């Protein structure tokens, strides 16, 4: 079962730190969202591999949008 990485708030994607297929560890940087002039980092929720990335830099995302999925190890 993949873990979903959700957007905590409406905002703009300013950075994506990983690629599909990357091996990742819990608490690695995943995505940086900008909202209200502040940058909020979103972290990888578990050790595993990046299965999908559903956004690109510059996208505006809604709250609870699925940003990426991680296959846990």
């Amino acid at each position: 079962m993949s873990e979903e990485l959700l957007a905590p708030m409406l905002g703009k994607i300013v950075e994506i730190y990983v690629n599909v297929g990357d091996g990742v560890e819990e608490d690695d940087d995943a995505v940086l969202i900008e909202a209200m002039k502040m940058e909020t980092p979103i972290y990888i929720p578990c050790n595993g591999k990046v299965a999908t990335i559903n956004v690109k830099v510059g996208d505006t995302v809604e709250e609870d949008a699925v940003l990426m999925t991680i296959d846990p190890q």
Partner: protein
Amino acid sequence: MRPYFEKMPDFGNPLKKGQIKRGVDNAQSLKAVEQEIDEAVDTIKNAGFSEEKINARGQMTVWQRLDYIVDKGTWSPLHILYNPANNSEGTTNVIDGLGKISGRWAVIIGFDNKVMAGAWLAGQSENILRVTDLAKRLNIPLVWLVNCSGAKLTEQEKFYANRRGAGTPFYRHAELNQMGIPVLAGIYGTNPAGGGYQSISPTILFAHKDCNIAVGGAGIVSGMAPKGNFDGAAAEQIIENTRHFKSHPPGSVATHYDGTGFFRYVYEEETGVLDGLKEYMAEIPAYNPRFFRVAEPAEPKFDAQDLYNLLPIDQKKVYDFEEILARLVDNSESMEFRPGYGPEVYTGLCKVNGFLVGIIGNRQGYLGKGYPEYADYPGMGGKLYRQGMIKMNEFVTLAGRDRIPLIWFQDTSGIDVGDTAEKAELLGIGQSLIYSIQQTDLPQMMVLLRKGSAAAHYLLGGPQGNDTNAFSIGTAASEVYVMHGETAAVAMYSRRLVKEKDAGRPIEPIIEKMNKIADDYKTFSRPKYCAEVGYVDEIVKLSEIRNYMVAFTGSAYQNPKSICPQHQMILPRIIKG
């Protein structure tokens, strides 16, 4: 009240792997700024004559005197970089801070005898007023190391007169005496005119055998009969007078110990003066700390070095305030007041060196769905909203009632704006918080962790609370400005841009001006600048913030003017419910 305070709930977590990795660059950036501050401090320490030259004259430098008199590990310097008049000497020529002498906290200040033999310079009286305010706010002694050659005469117009000019500290000394706060003075060197009053205005005078204090010195006496110009005869007269006064300066120990008796004690050695001050400090009224402690002192569970990973120097980046606080308070324990209400601020009780303190700090980051409750837009920490400001009003008021000193941690971009926010009464509740702070009459300390901006800077325990803020410290990440430089540039030039564009004129000159404003804001908000102009009283390394919290708390509880018995406190009971 042991069940409340001896063991409070734990908070904070060890650094995660990601935080360690991410923190490397951030720590480097913070430490680079700290290095810059260290270098500026070293320049002040080495200003004027060298230590060797002063020692060769048989004198100690002010730094050596401080090192001798202050209990090891307690010196918490303030105003080292303070130089509001931008003196070419780089200093106001007094060195001050909080420190313990003979186990008791004192505000300690001394003239830098390496620089123009401790002359009055511009900005010095303002520095001294900050120091006398500090003694007054904390109700602890002021200890002077006087060594003052008088005014730098070529710049007297900058500081001699005026309401907060060089004479004002003497009234403050009188005020401290009125309030029962002793001013002890160790006196060295030649102290004519202002230096004489600097010497005579304290409570008890401890003199070195070679010192002198006088209404006027050789220079003044020889110039007492102005004729409008100088000629050969006048010059000869001056030469004779100067020779005489150089060998017999007025106000020596023979006059003021043997004659007037102004000097209570005279010491052969420079260190003897300091030993005399130490003896008196050992007898200064002070509660044994156990009178007020609520628990045994304990270090935080987590390493202060973690702060370099946790506090982003990049102002856009969010962080977890509680993780910062957990590295500063005893045993990383906290009793949070109204958790969940007003999530943009933390308010709670913590312990510092075994003493109870109230802590208030801005939280950062997204505040969750449905907050602020009065608006349809999301709330972001650093900003203040209705609930958070109401919560701070309550907390401050209750802390005042319970006589618990407050430490503020400020990192704010301002109060929420717009008609919705106005309808939510934020303007009025903000001023209510100022009223609440003022009415506590509590000593308060402010740590400017990162941003102090907009009116929120005034509300969050800042130095504008002249009667409550004992002192403020900043960090390598501190910035102070009414608004961000880019925001200011837009505020100033947006209409002009439209006008020029509509008129078909080039907009590049306007863009240039906007960039200049943004750059100026950066220059005038940097930590070093904040310290030089006094926006904060010192820029402190992240790893040393707790030292200042210990100094503040110990001072505030040394001899407080009012007491709430621990078992009659109401704030901890409200927290418990």
